[in-house]
Every structure is written in structure tokens, then in C-alpha cells.
């Protein structure tokens, strides 16, 4: 990928800035720039831009835009509708027309005045944009799921660490929605965690939708980016939350499906509650369906500490040990412990104010790692990615975390990643 802005773009931006400065003389320092009791002075605000401003992106934008310590200066989307709507929100907020509306994310990353970006594109763009943003010195709030393939995660983490960037994953539910699981686990009420049953959705599927005339409001080539070229169809690129065939979340070129999309929350909350967030599974066991079809197939992940996560294990196969302690959330998750005495551990909290968004902004200021640091997001996403590959191959696998490869399975290793469409590269 041409990860750096082309000379012409960079030159254009610099020339534009110089021209604007010249025309705007004499410079007037406004009261807004100086700040007040609520709004910090401009020099203390985090200058932000958004990339991908459809459904989740608009929510993220509104959360950041509402903060007095954020100055929002640019929106970027390949769709005119999202571009226009998100720019209008910013302009209304500030009472100006200053917010830049851009199509190509490289123009955002080429601006030296931007401190941080939030990214909420379809998943097939996450790794490329994150790595490019790190190289450009931006901090990043990245919507979940952080990765589309297993190979992407370590490269994204390396870029974040190399350039000292704050990169937060975007799953607010991990701490907030799964609290009924988190609290008893971290309080030691279950003893040592032993096993988990987790209901997960299906993985993404191939897309064979027919070609439809491409509307002028979308830059289709840039929407596809590194994904294989396939014809425009609104069902292929709609950003709704469905995974049944009428959104990009349904399709393998752009998403891992419900397994990774909702799974980012579901695995995320479970893994956090069970204290597995720094680990990755070592074995992935494929349990085929029974020959008579009465028992469905399921997957078991085993972590290095022995904890098992059973994904969609049929209820008839689940243990009924009366000694087991069970925390039951309303989301199809059961965590079992052995009931032994375990010292309570304080549950980590967000920094700053304003939930996961405030946590990110606070860390941008302090340079601490955020609650949902990228590495934790990558570890979490490894689990559903492993499940997807085992489901696809219908066999058990062994995962070597250090090597980031499957052991003794060359075919599985083929599925670690995929070729990106030129000119995009990791």
C-alpha cells in the first residue's frame, strides 16, 4: 500500500494551509480558542478526525464531539451520505463550516495538526489504516473487531508499540454489559475458573450477490480497498448490524461475521471476566455433529492455564456438577469455577470520565495504555478467528502463540491471512 500520502496530497495540504494562513491575516485569537470553565484552551484539546462514519462511526463521532477536551476537525468516508452527515454534526457543534470532509484516509493521516483518529470502517480496512496511522504518529480509537485475520494483529501491535501510540479497541461492552459476569469472577466467588460455555453466532460467508449499478455517492474502489474486486451491490456494503446476508458484516472479504462482530463483545466480556485477556488459546478442538444429526457440532478452546471455552456446546453435553459455581449472564454465557478460595482482585476501571471514549482521551493525554489496549483486543479476537478456521476446515488445531502459526497443519496456516488487492499492503 502507498502508506504515506502521495507527494501531491501532502503538498496540497501544506500549500492549502499556507494559503489559508496568508489570507486569514491578521490572526485573531477567539474566546473559544482561549477556553473557559468547561472547555480547555485549544492548545490543550485533542485534535481528532473520524475515518468511517456510518453506523458505529457516527456513534463514536458523537461521543468524541461531545467532549470539551476534543477539537474535531475532519471527517473521512468513501460515502457522500456519511461524509455530509458527519461534517454537518461537527459544523453545527462549532457553529462553523471548518470541518474538512475527505474521501481518502491518507489525507487525514497527512495532516500534522491531527492528534488522534477514530476508525470505524468495515473490518478489512482496520489493519492497514491502523498501521498507517501509527506511522503517521496518530493515536487511534479502533472499532472492534480489531482484526480480520490472525496475521494482522501482531503487525498492528508492533506498529503501535514502535511509534509509542495509544491504540484503544472499541468494545465498550467488555466492561459495561458483562459486569454481572465480571464482578463475581474477579471477586473470587467462583474460585479458580475452570470452564466456560459460550453461545456464538456464525462465521461470515462468501458473497455472490449480483452486480448493481454503482451509485455516484460511493467510491467503490476505495470502499473495497484491499478486498477482492467484486461488483457493487448495496447488500454487500450496507453497514447495518445484520449478518444474514444484507450487510458487509455478513461476508468473508470484509468481516468475520457474527462470530467476530458480536463475538468481539461476547468473547471479549467472557475473556475479561475469566482473566484470560493476556492469553491466547493453545488448542482448538472440533467436535463434529453426531452421525444421526441430533447433536450439533461445537468447538472447544483450551487456554494455557487449562481453562476451556466451549463454543455452542449442546446443552445435553454440559456438566451438571452440583459443586460447580455458575455465573449466568443473560447472553448465553456460563462460567464455572471450582469453588476454591481465591483472593479477590480489583476490577480495572476506565481512566478519565466518559466511559471507554474518556478512557482513550485520558490515555492520549497521559500516554498510558488504555483499558482496551490493542493487544488485549487482538488476544480476544484470536479466539473467534481460531474458531472460524477450525469450523471451516472441520478439524482440530493446535495454535503456537509464539510463532503465530498452527502446528502441523499447513492448510490451516494458509488461512492466517489473505492477499490484499493492489496497491494495498500491510
Amino acid at each position: 500500500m502507498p502508506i504515506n500520502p502521495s507527494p501531491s496530497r501532502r503538498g496540497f495540504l501544506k500549500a492549502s494551509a499556507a494559503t489559508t494562513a496568508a489570507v486569514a491575516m491578521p490572526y485573531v485569537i477567539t474566546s473559544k480558542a482561549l477556553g473557559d470553565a468547561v472547555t480547555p484552551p485549544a492548545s490543550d484539546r485533542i485534535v481528532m478526525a473520524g475515518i468511517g462514519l456510518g453506523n458505529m462511526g457516527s456513534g463514536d463521532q458523537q461521543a468524541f464531539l461531545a467532549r470539551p477536551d476534543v477539537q474535531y476537525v475532519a471527517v473521512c468516508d468513501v460515502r457522500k451520505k456519511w461524509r455530509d452527515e458527519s461534517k454537518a454534526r461537527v459544523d453545527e457543534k462549532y457553529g462553523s463550516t471548518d470541518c474538512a470532509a475527505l474521501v481518502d484516509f491518507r489525507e487525514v493521516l497527512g495532516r500534522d495538526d491531527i492528534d488522534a483518529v477514530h476508525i470505524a470502517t468495515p473490518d478489512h480496512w482496520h489493519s492497514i489504516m491502523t498501521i498507517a496511522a501509527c506511522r503517521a504518529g496518530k493515536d487511534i480509537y479502533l472499532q472492534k473487531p480489531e482484526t480480520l485475520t490472525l496475521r494482522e494483529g501482531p503487525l498492528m501491535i508492533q506498529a503501535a508499540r514502535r511509534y509509542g501510540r495509544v491504540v484503544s479497541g472499541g468494545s465498550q461492552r467488555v466492561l459495561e454489559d458483562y459486569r454481572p459476569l465480571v464482578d463475581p469472577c474477579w471477586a473470587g466467588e467462583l474460585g479458580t475458573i475452570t470452564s466456560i460455555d459460550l453461545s456464538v453466532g456464525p462465521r461470515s460467508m462468501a458473497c455472490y450477490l449480483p452486480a448493481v449499478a454503482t451509485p455516484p455517492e460511493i467510491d467503490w474502489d476505495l470502499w473495497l480497498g484491499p478486498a477482492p474486486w467484486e461488483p457493487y451491490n448495496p447488500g454487500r456494503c450496507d453497514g447495518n448490524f445484520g449478518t444474514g446476508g444484507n450487510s458487509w458484516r455478513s461476508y468473508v472479504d470484509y468481516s468475520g461475521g457474527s462470530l467476530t462482530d458480536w463475538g468481539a463483545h461476547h468473547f471479549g466480556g467472557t475473556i475479561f471476566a475469566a482473566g484470560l485477556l493476556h492469553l491466547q488459546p493453545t488448542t482448538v478442538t472440533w467436535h463434529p455433529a453426531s452421525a444421526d444429526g441430533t447433536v450439533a457440532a461445537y468447538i472447544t478452546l483450551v487456554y494455557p492455564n487449562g481453562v476451556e471455552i466451549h463454543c455452542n456446546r449442546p446443552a445435553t453435553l454440559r456438566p451438571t456438577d452440583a459443586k460447580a459455581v455458575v455465573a449466568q449472564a443473560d447472553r448465553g454465557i456460563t462460567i464455572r469455577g471450582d469453588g476454591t478460595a481465591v483472593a479477590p482482585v480489583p476490577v480495572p476501571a476506565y481512566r478519565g470520565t466518559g466511559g471507554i471514549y474518556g478512557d482513550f482521551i485520558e490515555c492520549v493525554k497521559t500516554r498510558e495504555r488504555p483499558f482496551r489496549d490493542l493487544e488485549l483486543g487482538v488476544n480476544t479476537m484470536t479466539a473467534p478467528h481460531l474458531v472460524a478456521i477450525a469450523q471451516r476446515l472441520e478439524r482440530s488445531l493446535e495454535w503456537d502463540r509464539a510463532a503465530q502459526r498452527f502446528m502441523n497443519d499447513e492448510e490451516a496456516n494458509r488461512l492466517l491471512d489473505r492477499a490484499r488487492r493492489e496497491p494495498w499492503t500491510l
Partner: protein
Amino acid sequence: MPFDPTTLDGPFTALAAFEWGGDAAPLGVIDAAVVAAHGDAALTADLEKRLGSVISGATSRAAKDYACRKLSMIGTAASVPVLVPLLTDPDESHMARFALERIPAAAAADALRQALGTVRGDLVIGMISSLANRRDAASVKPLAALLGGDATTAAAAASALGRIATADAAAALAAAKIQPGPVADAVIDARLACADAFLAAGNRGSAQAIYESIAARIGDTPTTHRDRVVRIAAQSGILACLDDTVAL
């Protein structure tokens, strides 16, 4: 239960005529056969031959797209000659790489490397990208030669050398004479990637030399945001090299 190859005749006939929006049910049979081919050399060879025929035949882009995806899972060196002609076709090049990048055989890497000299425009970047993903050490020399090419290609080549991260790759990057700009930025990113790889492998000396070289180039008073970020990377690297308590 062994897979009966004769059940594939109909689905492959359907695949040969497949267009986006068409009936995808026959493709599901082929999907299942590809999974069932694990450990079944005869079925694998049969499927590979059938998929190759789809690619070589007068079939649609959608059919070739599908066949390349399946060959990416089961293809061997035998598929390389079938895929190579697609590499120069702007419509098909990516999907040919989709397969070749994943085929472990050396012949696949050879084909991608040779294509560096035969394809044009963005397709060159595609070859570079796939060779980088394969971390193909044999590609260091031809990639280094591209550092002097057009800016987009040179930046991609630099990035690829950073992914390969061998001593030869690091040397090629260090020797590059690039004017300040996007390509120089890509070379620095790649050199930092090499240094990080060396440090992770316990080769502190080589890593430190790169970090110090980059830090010296930036100087103590970086003037741009990008230079400040690079300085952070280089100085952090130097500290990590000097810190014996850092586990490698």
C-alpha cells in the same frame, strides 16, 4: 465417508458458467469437497485439476475468482503454471496472487518474484505485497532494485524489505539513497521494523546500530510531527537494546 468425485461433475459444469448473482448452491458442493480433500491426495489432485480448468477456460471473472479462492486452500506447485498467466491481467492478477501467496511450494514464490519484472503499474505492488507476506528472503535483491523506482513502488518495496527483515534486507535499506519524502519515510519505517525484528531475535548489536543511525539522522530537534514520532521509535529502541532486564 470418502467423497465421491463423480458428484463434482455437475457442480463444476455449473461453476464454469457461474456469474455473480447466479445459483451458488453447486458451489457449496465444491466447498465441501475441498474440506473433504484433507489427507486425500487423489481427491486433492482431482479438485486441483478441475479448478485449474476453470481458470484456464473461457469462464467469467466470478468463476475464476471462486476457483482461485479454492486453489488458495489446496493448490500445489501443479497449479502455478495455471495461475501465472493471470498475474499480468489487471482484472485477475489479485485473485491469482490470492492463490499463489498461500501455496507453500517454492514454485509459487518463484512465480511471484519473476512477475516483478513482467507486470506493470499497481500489479507490481501486488507482487511485492505477496512476497512480503511470504517473507520471501530470496526476494531481497529484486526488491532492493525497486527502491530506485517510482515512489509508490519504492515505498512498497521498502515496506516489504522491512517485513522480510533479514540482514540482507536491512543492509539494502541502509544503502538506499533516497531524498526526503514518502519513500524515505517508508525506508525508515522498514529499517525500524528490521531493528525490532533483530532485537526480538536477541541480536541487540545489529538492532542498536539501526536505531542509532536513525536517531542520528533525525537529530535532537525534530522539526516535524513525523520526525518526532520516528525519534520516539529510535530512542525507545536504543533504550531497549541497552536494558539487559528486557526479556527478548
